[in-house]
């Protein structure tokens, strides 16, 4: 059974480009809407790509900016200057 990698983000205007980037870049992502936040689940790995967010945001974006809207995460973190990813490796 695959383990679920997950990111829960605030559902506000600042998070919108990040949420859209995640939905575009992660096939099979499952969306759970909760009051005020959105939980994004996917088997094994979930990635936020800097380029993807920048395309939707209209300015340069540091992946660390995700912390302003990050509520919760599940998975081992893999982060560098170009991506922020949570996942499980077996």
């Amino acid at each position, binding site marked *: 059974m695959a383990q679920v990698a997950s990111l829960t983000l605030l559902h506000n*205007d600042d998070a*919108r*480009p990040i949420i859209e980037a995640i939905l575009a870049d992660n096939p099979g992502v499952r969306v759970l*809407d*909760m*009051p005020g936040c959105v939980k994004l689940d996917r088997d094994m790995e979930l990635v936020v790509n800097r380029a993807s967010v920048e395309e939707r*945001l*209209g*300015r340069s974006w540091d992946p660390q900016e995700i912390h302003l809207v990050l509520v919760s995460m599940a998975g081992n973190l893999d982060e560098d200057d170009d991506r922020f990813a949570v996942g499980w490796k077996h």
Partner: protein
Amino acid sequence: MTIQIKTIDLEPKRQTFGHIARRLGADKPASRYQEATLDVQATDNFHYKPLWEPEFWFYDAGKSAVTMEDWYKPLDPRQFYYAAYNIARANMNQAVERNFAFAEERGLIEKLSAEAKAAIERGLLPLRHLHWGSNMNMSEICQRGYGTAVTAPCIFAAGDHLGMAQIVSRIGLELDGQTGVSLDKAKETWLSDAAWQGARRLIEDLLVERDWFQLYVAQTLAVNAVLFDLVYMRLDSAWRDGAIPVAMLTEFTADWRAEEGRWSDHVVKTVAAESPANKTVISQWANHWIDRAVEAAEPLVSALTNADAAAAAGDAARSRARSLGLNV
């Protein structure tokens, strides 16, 4: 009595305004930029034609020779609306304050040679008048233009020019011990020094240009890309030992050009790509005004330095125009 705490998810009946949903193709959440920009400008039911220009309605696509199927096609890649713009500029301004504080603490301006100070007074300070003219031009484009997508960022750019004029003025105040004497001299220079009369004639001719998109092309591809880029970025040798302090104190303009250029290039490119007729007319305008700007730059460059900076600035502007799909 037991208390149960539950959350209820209330689905909004609509995610956004009707006119936004029609533009997005579906009723989905819209960004603040979209809601602040799309279809904001009135298009119908104007009550009377203006007495000063009765051949047009207040908002009239006929005020320019270029035509667009949809003037909301050239959106701002920076997605600036009022709040985003202010936040971006506030951040840039923090760097300005720190740089001026650093220059003041170290006395970087006082310690400059007399030649450097004279060069800055003659060659940099009168730029505040060129910025004022640019503010007038961007305001004019905002007023006469069509479609909020293009016109709203114009008033942001107009504000930016005033900000840059203030920065230039502050440099002058550093030079004259906060008395303002250098700024009075700079105005005299602007009005009577042969070095500046080309730039002055150029901006004054633009003040009376009635085709608002021609004015946009002239301001962004000629005044910004030739004259401002020239003085702020290609004249280091003119400031002599003041080159580094000037670069530091005018850092805002370098950052601004990079960011504003993303928007203005995108607008010109999009409108030129709309039709061969647009491309022809915009290319003619770009050619004409870049030539005028290089002509205006020549006496300024020869007064300040012996480099061939005017031609180089013109070539850079033409190369930029070509990258936007224009024939120059």
